[in-house]
């Protein structure tokens, strides 16, 4: 069975464009989230949001929204493909594994707003080239010369983590020589107001596992990762193990007793042939919502007798939903390549949860790193990446 390595990456988040800029921004400490504007039915509502740094603002007309999305995707996907050094012929055989929760719904929202202004009887999702979720991936393939199969994963906050899992499996099975995984999420009013309706939004910075946690801040991000059978250099990261489980406890939260979280973590360890003590550090999902943190902390405590160093990246990036699986992985790996575990300062321990986040950047050796993701619809995913020989 062939190996499968991370050979090219592109990243654009609220911290900046490219991994170097993302890491540099981390050193400046927390800033307050910016405000994004949701336009609907003649109203405008401002919501805290970690929007893409150095990108055109959202909220323009449909052509502007599409152009913004294309620009973000062209940068990240183009960077990843270029870094991987794929020839046009190799690109043509590459598979596209897209993970997103909202696809290009921001463009559809703008179109519908425009149509309603012209015709009050306009209908949603009308007059598009094809009202299909899969249209988004076809557009990406066409713009980047990718003619391999495309798969659009829509499993809420685990979408791009699941996309990576399956891309890795397809390369290891020998069906593909290369795969490109894309995780993208941009601002849209439905998501912002939907989370507000669920009363999950924090008015300020996220504090996962903190006794005063009060919810999440949404974020925009786009990341791309090329997988190939040959490592680009010694110490290249690879997916060592993974697991996904459907948690039927609730549509919107993992079982708070931690049983389903601990099970998916154990399955990931099993697939990587590792014991809990072999995990060098762990990136938690860490949404700072009451229920997620409770379930996640309970699950981790059930598996780890001695908790490895734990970090959470959503306080920096915002919760980027279907994209978080990939952008958090790339940011984590970029810091780990520099020998650092990213810190989350200012988190006060909640003794009921018993999870203390790493407070500042700390030295990190090579090893095995666990990254966990939990989504609506009872979708739980645990990834283990490694950079050891």
């Amino acid at each position: 069975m062939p190996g499968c390595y991370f050979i090219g990456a592109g990243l654009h988040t609220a911290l900046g464009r490219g991994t170097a800029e993302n890491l540099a921004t981390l050193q400046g400490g927390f800033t307050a989230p910016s405000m994004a504007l949701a336009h609907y039915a003649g109203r405008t509502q401002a919501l805290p949001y970690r929007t893409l740094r150095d990108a055109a603002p959202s909220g323009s007309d449909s052509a502007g929204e599409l152009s913004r999305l294309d620009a973000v995707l062209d940068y990240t996907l183009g960077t990843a493909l270029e870094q991987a050094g794929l020839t046009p012929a190799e690109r043509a055989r590459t598979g596209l594994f897209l993970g997103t929760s909202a696809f290009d719904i921001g463009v559809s929202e703008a179109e519908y707003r425009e149509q309603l202004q012209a015709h009050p009887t306009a209908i949603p999702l009308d007059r598009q080239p094809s009202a299909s979720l899969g249209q988004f991936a076809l557009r990406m393939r066409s713009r980047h010369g990718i003619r391999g199969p495309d798969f659009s994963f829509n499993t809420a906050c685990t979408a791009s983590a699941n996309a990576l899992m399956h891309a890795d499996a397809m390369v290891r099975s020998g069906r593909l020589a290369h795969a490109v995984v894309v995780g993208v999420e941009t601002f849209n009013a439905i998501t912002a107001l939907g989370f507000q309706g669920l009363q999950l939004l924090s008015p300020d910075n996220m504090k996962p596992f903190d006794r005063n946690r009060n919810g999440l801040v949404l974020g925009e991000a786009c990341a791309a990762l090329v997988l190939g059978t040959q490592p680009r250099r010694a110490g290249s990261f690879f997916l060592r193990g993974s697991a996904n489980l459907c948690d039927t406890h609730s549509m919107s939260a993992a079982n708070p007793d931690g049983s389903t979280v601990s099970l998916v973590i154990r399955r990931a360890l099993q697939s990587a042939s590792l014991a809990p003590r072999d995990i060098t550090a762990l990136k938690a999902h860490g949404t700072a919502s009451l229920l997620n943190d409770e379930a996640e902390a309970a699950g981790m405590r059930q598996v780890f007798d001695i908790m490895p160093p734990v970090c959470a990246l959503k306080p920096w990036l915002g919760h980027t939903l279907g994209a978080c699986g990939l952008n958090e992985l790339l940011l984590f790996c970029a810091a780990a390549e520099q020998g650092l575990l990213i810190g989350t300062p200012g988190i006060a321990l909640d003794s009921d949860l018993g999870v203390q986040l790493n407070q500042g950047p700390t030295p990190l050796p090579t090893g095995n790193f666990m990254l966990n993701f939990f989504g609506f619809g009872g979708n739980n995913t645990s990834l283990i990446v490694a950079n050891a020989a």
Partner: protein
Amino acid sequence: MSAQVYASGECHLPTTDPPLDLKPLVKETTGEAVRRIGRFIQLALIGAGRCAKAAAVPPDTAVYFASGRGDFETTVEVMATLFRDGGAPKPLSFVNTVSNAACYYVARTLKLQSRSNFVCNRNLAFESVLQLALVEVESGAAASALVGSVDAVTMPLAEHRRRVHLPADAPLAEGSHWLWIGPARDDRPRLGEVLAVEQFSDAASLLAWIATQQLDAGNCAFSAGQFLDADAAQGLRTQAGLTQVFDYRAGRGHYSSQSGAAIAEFLASAPPGARLLHVNADPADCFSAMLVSR
């Protein structure tokens, strides 16, 4: 590598106006009156439930689910409520906009405790999810998998036809097609075998692969996917050396993911040992091939 097919479950509904109320079918199939779900999830429960009824699907079965267009009904409702009426998305409607909501209801109703995934592909929905599931079963990552696709209509039907670019009198349908696949087991009666699911970036690579499959025109039929142009289908069938045509599309109204019906209907009607090569295409002239045997 391949996977055995242990059961299939289907729900194909030519669309009437108003469309058939699916609640009784959900209750009849699952034994439960599942409340506060739309047609998309109802169709998933009916198709998957019929598949699970046909054989004892064990709890460690994964759910691999796909759609060509996704849950239009929920998305349209949320968009109209917000942008036309100025109302915030209702929590349940908002949560149900995630397509894997259907996986949750299928797993919960059938008491499954394994993996679940939702994948969308505009033209090759069933083929894509079957390929992913096959890789999972082959590697042992999934003990077995319930693999299905659903596409549903939204009301009013005239608006649905506009959205999917169909003329006003075009016949519509809804479909939910499911297979339960897994590794070979002596203790399970089987319907057939998925021998291969592959995707190709051009016709030449598809034909090169077909040439390696040693297909016998005497026992292998050809079926054309709904997005494969009729002339292309005839050309490919001829070049593959196949003469029998398996027609699963006659009288079928429009919906996006029909390929699962080809497999299920072939396995239900073909003689033992017979094979089916199903070929479909996408707008970029890329191709998919599914090879199954009865």
